[in-house]
Every structure is written in structure tokens, then in C-alpha cells.
């Protein structure tokens, strides 16, 4: 099957690729007949949730699969040459030289005991046939191109001397320095902060355009796709369900899965009183692939035919194909759920009671050394934070990692003792943790997990507690059958529901959610956000929502606190902060967020934050943001701005709040 109407041969032609993982409990078909083509100079995004087979597919192309995975069918043609026919030796000449790779985890992709130069120069010498000196100059050139300051010196650094963002830049420089024809990047920015992510994406976009390198970009972030890709392949359950030019896919998606995914993202202009559309259910277990269409059970447009015969990709427009029996997917068949169900307005009457009051809170970490006379280094994680949360209100805290937002949460819950300052909470504060796989004792059943707070607080007798647990599990939308399971037997979304149930057990007045959806799949994310919003409205609890996902925070929060290096730099009503930011950092953060709309993205020329977060070990004397601020003056470096009210409802810590 060909999706291309033009006649020139594609650079990469993947045909009916099939990959299986042999496990003890059966064979998992991770990639189930995937065909697509990448032309020279093209940027193709592969989008899919975890388990959709997108990484397995990328690994299969270069036969980099780890045991027990193995390619069981299909062909991969690079420049017309079948890679599956090559010997391991011939293939390693292709890897690196013709095809460069950048993987997700910058921490483990570089050898920790080798200097960058040792890892970078020999491949360049081999690939381009250069002498050591010339190759070294080449390496420095590329490090400079990807934005590594002082490249000549950094070339001889060890990986541990660099931050995650720097290492990912090095990986990109390494991949591109051999002048590959194709770059395969597997979630290259997922582990990084939003501001760094935007920088990296810009670098890759610029450099691949410069060198004419084609790119295959694997991600689950639809915003990035819109910013970056020429074409998009959407994968579900090991198959490509939709493929086409990026604008087509975003404007007229025709597979129900693509359509649902796009509607689950809170858009920048999302109406806050509307519920997010959500995809019911979970992706299928690939050990027992369903008969017919794999998306059938989560699809509102499913017809009997879907159960019998899996749909093949069929044309929907110029170069646009989708695998669905319905010509337009959900369109015209179901109205999106968000229109049907309107989120009730918040009960403003409740708002006059302050549930959380934080005054000039500081938290400094230091580790005194027994046998050292040097001054003890102090990390100022939280540096004078003052916040209020009213009853029934949601406070969103945003900022890059290391800004102290999680420490504020831990202080609020009493998990850490503040260095100075005060915290008052009216009633009990409870927490929903970030990583649903680490937040439960793996040896306890779900029933015992939810019951634990009740047992600890000696709440009721055994029967009353059991009834309460059943009530809670129903409240978060799970079934009683789940109570007998262990955490490892639940999916990520289900576990996060259990986490919410546990947090609700003692009727808390404040709920703190620290990145509650960042470890979840896109299609499940909206389910959890809707659940949290519903509970907040039903129970009238105050919410503190911590996240780096600005679109979600904007959707869920009433007020927003933007944190930078342990300080609140801007604080005010969510819409105002987003629409008219008063602090240059807030503005930069908002600009870096890729929007899931390729047309807008094409016209946007985001002014990206340069550099990285300074070390919290030695904070500058003046404004902490001065080193990265586009409107910095001498006054900022000398004098620290305090939070004040440049606008009636808003606070910002900047000398020039009206300048941006």
C-alpha cells in the first residue's frame, strides 16, 4: 500500500512491519503490520499512548529490539535497500551513519565513565573519514550548534557534569554530526522541563531543516506534533490508524481515536465550565488482541462490522488515510461529550472561608558534613512563599522542576518541617501523588490501601469501614471487584482513582494533587481531571493542583501561583494570569507551551527562554530570574523585586510589570 501520490522513492519505506514479544504468559504483538514512508527532509511524528507499539516500531526499524522482542514480518527499506536482509555488521554501518537516533532518557544514553569527546569523536571519524583533529573541530561545531555554551571546554566534560537538557543536546549533536539522512527521535524531550523542551525542539527543527535530514519523531504530546511535524502517524494497539499531513489530521481527523484524543486536550481557549471530553475504557491488552477493530470497545461510532473485520487504511483526502469503516469517524454520529455535559458553576458562596493560609514560608535543605570545615551548602528550596486557598477553590501552582512547588506541597501536608514561616489548614489536608506505581504498598490489597487512613484514625468498626471503602471506590468510578486486587493488577488510571479514594477517606478539607496526571496516558488523563473537578464541585473541598502542564492548570485552577526558584513570582486569577501575564517568566512559560493546533503554531514565533534554571545553591542577590529575563536591567541584578500589586487582583514580583 502506498500513501504517497508523488513518484520519487521514499527515504524510508516501512512495509507491513510486525514485531512480537514472547513472554511467559503469551505472545504480545507490539507492532501489527505497520506501513508508512518517510521522504527525504520530511518530519514525521508517530503519536500513540504507551503500549501502542510506537517505540517497539522505531526499535524494529534498526533491529535494536531487546530480548524478548523480535521482528517477525515485513520489510524496512532505506534508500531502497532492505535493512532486514543486512547482516549485523552491515547494519551497524547504517546505524549512526545513515540513521541517527536520540532516545528518551538523556541520563542513560551516554556512557557515564567516558568523556563526551571520547563518545563523540570516533563515530565522526568513522562516518565522515576525518582525522582526529578535524573530527574534534567538527564535534565542537555541532555542540555549538545545539546550543552548548563553551563547547570547546564542554567537549571534554563527563556526562554527570551536565544537566539533563545539556545531555539531550549532546545526544542530538552526536546524532546529527555524522550527517545521517534520517534521525529517529524517541520521546526526546519527555524527560525535560517545558522551557528546555521548547529549546530542544527548536534546535532539532532548525538543524534538520538546515541539513535536509528527515526525521521520525515519536511522542505522545499532540502540542509538540503541531509545532514540529509535517506528517503524523497515529498508532493504536500496534497499528497505524491514521496517517496524513499534520494540518489535515488536526483540522479533519477522521479516525475516532484521533478525534477523541484531540478533543481530550484542554485547549488554550477551553471553556472552563465545560467538562473535558474523555475516552472511556483503556487500551486493549495486546496479549489477547481483540477481533476486528482494536478501538471498537471505546468507540461511540462502532457498528457490527467493526467487530468482525479490522478496517484497513483507506484514503480520506490528499495523502490522508484512516482505518475506520465510518467515512468520517465520530463526526455526525456522536456529539462530543463536552457539549452534552456542562460543568456546574462553582459555588461562590463557599468562598469566604480560608482553608489554607501560608505565610512567608521557607524551607532550606542542608546536609552538614561530619569531617568538613567548609561552610555547609544550603539549598533554598522554598524562599518566602505566601499563599491562600479558599473553600471550594482550586489553586494551581506551576513552574519548572526545581522551583519548589513540590516542596510547598510536602510542607503543606506536614511531610517536611518548615525552616520558618507558618502554615494553617482548616481541617485535614490529603494528597494525590504523582506516580501511581510508587504511591501504593505493593503488598497490600486495594481495600486495605483505601481503609488504611480509617484504621490509623480508628474510624468506626470493621463493618463501618468496609461500607465506607465500598462507598469510596464507587465514588471514584471503580467497581467493588477492584478491592480484592493488588496495585500491580490495575492500570495507571485505575491506580490514580484509588489514590483519590484513599485521599478522600477521611473527608479532607484540602486536597493536594502533585502532577496527578503526568504519569498517565493521554486518553486516561481527561478521565482523572474530570473526576477531580467533579469531586471538588460535589464535596466543596479546596484544591491545590501542582503541575507543569499549563493547559491543564489553566483549565482546572481558579487562581494560579507561578513559582521560580522557591519564590512566587506571579499570583492571581487563572484567566488573567494566562491572558495578560505581568511577570516576564510567566509570559515565557506560556509562550513555550506548544498548542495542539498546527495553524496557530506555524504563525507563532515563540520567544524562548534561554539558558537553564540557576542552581538553588547560590541564588543571585537581585531578581532570581535576572539571568534569563529578556527585559533585565541593572536594577534587577542589584535589587530584588518583591511581590506587589501591579494590577488590582494580581501580584507580581517584577520591577517592570507593565513592560511586557
Amino acid at each position, binding site marked *: 500500500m502506498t500513501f504517497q501520490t508523488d513518484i520519487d522513492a521514499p527515504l524510508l519505506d516501512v512495509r507491513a512491519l510486525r514485531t512480537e*514479544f514472547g*513472554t*511467559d*504468559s*503469551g505472545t*504480545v504483538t*507490539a507492532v501489527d503490520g505497520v506501513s508508512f514512508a518517510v521522504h527525504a527532509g520530511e518530519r514525521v511524528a508517530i503519536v500513540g*499512548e*504507551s*503500549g*501502542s*507499539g*510506537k*517505540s*517497539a516500531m522505531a526499535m524494529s526499524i534498526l533491529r535494536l529490539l*531487546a530480548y524478548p*522482542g523480535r521482528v517477525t514480518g515485513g520489510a524496512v527499506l532505506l534508500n531502497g535497500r532492505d535493512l532486514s536482509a543486512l547482516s549485523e555488521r552491515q547494519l551497524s554501518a547504517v546505524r549512526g551513519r545513515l540513521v541517527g537516533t536520540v532516545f*528518551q532518557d538523556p541520563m542513560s544514553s551516554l556512557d557515564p565513565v567516558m568523556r563526551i569527546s571520547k563518545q563523540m569523536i570516533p563515530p565522526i571519524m568513522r562516518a565522515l573519514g576525518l582525522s582526529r583533529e578535524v573530527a574534534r573541530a567538527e564535534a565542537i561545531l555541532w555542540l555549538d550548534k545545539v546550543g552548548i555554551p563553551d563547547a570547546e571546554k564542554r567537549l571534554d566534560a563527563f556526562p554527570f557534569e551536565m544537566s539533563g537538557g545539556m545531555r539531550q543536546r549532546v545526544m542530538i549533536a552526536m546524532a546529527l554530526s555524522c550527517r545521517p539522512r534520517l534521525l529517529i527521535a524517541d*520521546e526526546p524531550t519527555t524527560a525535560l522541563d517545558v522551557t528546555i523542551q521548547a529549546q530542544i525542539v527548536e534546535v532539532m527543527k532548525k538543524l534538520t531543516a538546515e541539513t535536509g535530514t528527515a526525521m521520525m519523531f515519536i511522542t*505522545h504530546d499532540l502540542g509538540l506534533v503541531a509545532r514540529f511535524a509535517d506528517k503524523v502517524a497515529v498508532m493504536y494497539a500496534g497499528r497505524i490508524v491514521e496517517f496524513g499531513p499534520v494540518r489535515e489530521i488536526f483540522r479533519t481527523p477522521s479516525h475516532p481515536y484521533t478525534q477523541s484524543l484531540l478533543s481530550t486536550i484542554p485547549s488554550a481557549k477551553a471553556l472552563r465550565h465545560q467538562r473535558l471530553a474523555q475516552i472511556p475504557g483503556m*487500551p486493549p*491488552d*495486546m*496479549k489477547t488482541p481483540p477481533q476486528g477493530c482494536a478501538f471498537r470497545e471505546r468507540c461511540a461510532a462502532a457498528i457490527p462490522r467493526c467487530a468482525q473485520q479490522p478496517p484497513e487504511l483507506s484514503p480520506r483526502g490528499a495523502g490522508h488515510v484512516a482505518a475506520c469503516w465510518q467515512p468520517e469517524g465520530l463526526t455526525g454520529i456522536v456529539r462530543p461529550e463536552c457539549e452534552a455535559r456542562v460543568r456546574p458553576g462553582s459555588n461562590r458562596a463557599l468562598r469566604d472561608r480560608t482553608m489554607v493560609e501560608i505565610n512567608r514560608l521557607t524551607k532550606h535543605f542542608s546536609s552538614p558534613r561530619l569531617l568538613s570545615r567548609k561552610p555547609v551548602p544550603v539549598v533554598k528550596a522554598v524562599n518566602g512563599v505566601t499563599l491562600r486557598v479558599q473553600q471550594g477553590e482550586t489553586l494551581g501552582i506551576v513552574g519548572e522542576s526545581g522551583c519548589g512547588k513540590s516542596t510547598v506541597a*510536602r510542607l503543606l*501536608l*506536614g*511531610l517536611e518541617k518548615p525552616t520558618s514561616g507558618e502554615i494553617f489548614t482548616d481541617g*485535614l*489536608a*490529603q*494528597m494525590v*501523588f*504523582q*506516580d*501511581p*506505581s*510508587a*504511591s*501504593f*504498598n*505493593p*503488598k*497490600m490489597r486495594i481495600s486495605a490501601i483505601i481503609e*488504611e487512613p480509617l484504621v*490509623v*484514625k480508628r474510624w468506626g468498626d470493621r463493618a463501618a469501614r468496609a461500607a465506607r471503602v465500598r462507598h469510596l471506590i464507587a465514588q471514584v468510578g471503580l467497581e467493588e471487584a477492584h478491592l480484592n486486587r*493488588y*496495585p*500491580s*493488577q490495575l*492500570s*495507571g488510571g485505575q*491506580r490514580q482513582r484509588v*489514590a483519590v479514594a*484513599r485521599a478522600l477517606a*477521611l473527608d479532607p478539607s484540602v486536597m493536594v494533587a502533585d502532577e496527578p496526571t503526568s*504519569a*498517565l*496516558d493521554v486518553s486516561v488523563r481527561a478521565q482523572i481531571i474530570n473526576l477531580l473537578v467533579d469531586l471538588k464541585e460535589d464535596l466543596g473541598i479546596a484544591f491545590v493542583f501542582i503541575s507543569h502542564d499549563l493547559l491543564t492548570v489553566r483549565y482546572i485552577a481558579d487562581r494560579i501561583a507561578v513559582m521560580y526558584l522557591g519564590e512566587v513570582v506571579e499570583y492571581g486569577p487563572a484567566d488573567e494570569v494566562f491572558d495578560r501575564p505581568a511577570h516576564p517568566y510567566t509570559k515565557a512559560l506560556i509562550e513555550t507551551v506548544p498548542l495542539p493546533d498546527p495553524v496557530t503554531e506555524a504563525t507563532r514565533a515563540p520567544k524562548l527562554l534561554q539558558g537553564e534554571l540557576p542552581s538553588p545553591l547560590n541564588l543571585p542577590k537581585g531578581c532570581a530570574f535576572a539571568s534569563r529575563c529578556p527585559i533585565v536591567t541593572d536594577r534587577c541584578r542589584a535589587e530584588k523585586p518583591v511581590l506587589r500589586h501591579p494590577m488590582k487582583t494580581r501580584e507580581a514580583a517584577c520591577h517592570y510589570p507593565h513592560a511586557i
Partner: protein
Amino acid sequence: MTQDTTNVPNRAEAPGLAIRAAGGLHRMGQGRFLANRKTRLALVILVPILALTAFAPLLPLQGPLETNLGAMMQPPSLEHPFGTDRMGRDILARTLAGVQISLLVGLSVAVLAMVAGIVLGTLAGFFGGFVDRAVMSIVDIFLAFPSLLLAIGLVAVMGTGVIPVIMAIALADVPRFIRLQRSLVLSLRSRAFIDAARTVDAPQAWLMRRHIVPNTVAPMLVAASIAAANAILVEASLSFLGLGIMPPVPSLGNIIRDGQTYLEQAWWISTLPGLVILAIAISFHFLSDGVREALDPRSRQ
């Protein structure tokens, strides 16, 4: 290493690979443990030895202490499958009696060292600070001596016999268990489920009993089965050196010691009990591998 699995997206994208990992002992299930090849090999060796040891009095053998001066230094025969020694005692009967003591020593040491290690290691790891420093300095002092040497020293102080031998070997092993338990506790202490329990002010005893210890039992069991094998060898060594179980009470160590003088005339006196020790030690090591692989599916091939 943890036993729970992560379904966090962006990890290895093999659906279902993660799901099969177990949650713990309760689901270790006989299925997976017994399906392990090493476990089965260990059981094929251990079960007959255990059965013979248990039913030794019913076997048509002379008692382990009975001498028969008319049949000294007999080579293995139907009547005396392992032969006889210089006093005409039946080596098989003595070996089986020795195995009984060996197993008693091995299991007692493993249980004692594990329990003491869990208690002290948990306290040190959980509380940190002064408790940690106090416990760990003693541990470091103990660890500065080779454990056999330490056991020899302790036996010299406490005297010979089964109980002192068990105490000495257990005491020499405890530091290792404390170290292991402490490191496990340290990695668990910062996990989110501990934080979750702390947000409802769960008492520290509750945290240790409900959350910490259950998650350390599996690796401790693995260590305990290796310690059992080691203890059997140390007991044999002590007895061989004349410091452990004193003749005429048979122990594998002192039987071998008895026989070594006659190795050229009567090889069976030392060799056959020696092979039995070897078999027991190897099967305990296999068992520990089996336990580990059953509890941690990721270590399997």
C-alpha cells in the same frame, strides 16, 4: 530492587510485560516457585536426604553411636552403604545424624540472623541519626573480621555444643543481615506510600510493621537461604577443627575429621559425608536462586 511494577508510560513499551510481575510472597504461588528448574533440582536432592534423616531410626542400620569392633573400616556394602569407621560405627547412620544437626544449625542460624537483622536494620534505617550510627558502628566492627574467624572466637568464649555453635554463627551473620535490611529500608523510606501514610499521622510502628517490613521480607528470605547453606559449612568447619560439636555426638564436620587420618586406607569415611555436605550446600543455593527468581520476575531469563 523492587517487586512492584511500573505501568508508567514511556517506559519499555511492551504491553503486558510489566503486568505479570508479582506483588509479593502471597502470590509467589507454588506454581512459579516449583516451576523453576533450579528449585526442582534442589528439591530432588534435598527431599531424599530429608526423608532419610527423618526416618533414620526406622532404617535397618545400627545406631549412630553403636560400635562394632568386629566390623571396623569396612568399605561400603549393602549392610553398611557408607561403610564403617575405625570403631566399626555405621557411617550412614552417623551421617544422617550429622545431617540432622547440620539442618538444625542451618535453619536456626538463618531464622535467628534474619529476625535480628530485620529488627535492628529496620530501626537503624528508619530512625537514622543516633540509632543508625550506634547500630552501624557495631556492625562495622563485626564486619571487619572474617565470619569464620569470628565464629571460632565466639565458640572459644561460649564453649562447644549445638546451642553455642548456633549462637556463634548467627552472631557472626547478623551484621550482614542488618546491612541488607537497612539498605532496603532506606530505599523504601522515601517511597510515596510511606508519605501517604504519614499524611494521616500513622504511628511509626505502624509504618514499619505495615509498610516497611513486608516489603523487605522477600530479599531477606533470599539472603537467609544463602546464610543457611553458609551456616552448615561453618558448623562443619568448626566441628572439623574440633571446636563445634564434640565427638562422640556425630556431626558432618567431626566425621570428616575422624576419617581424614585414614583417607588412604578408608576413603569412604571422609568422602561420602563430604559429598552430602556439598549436596546440601548446593541445594540451598539453588533454593535461594529459586526464591529470588520467583519473587522478582525481572531477573529471569
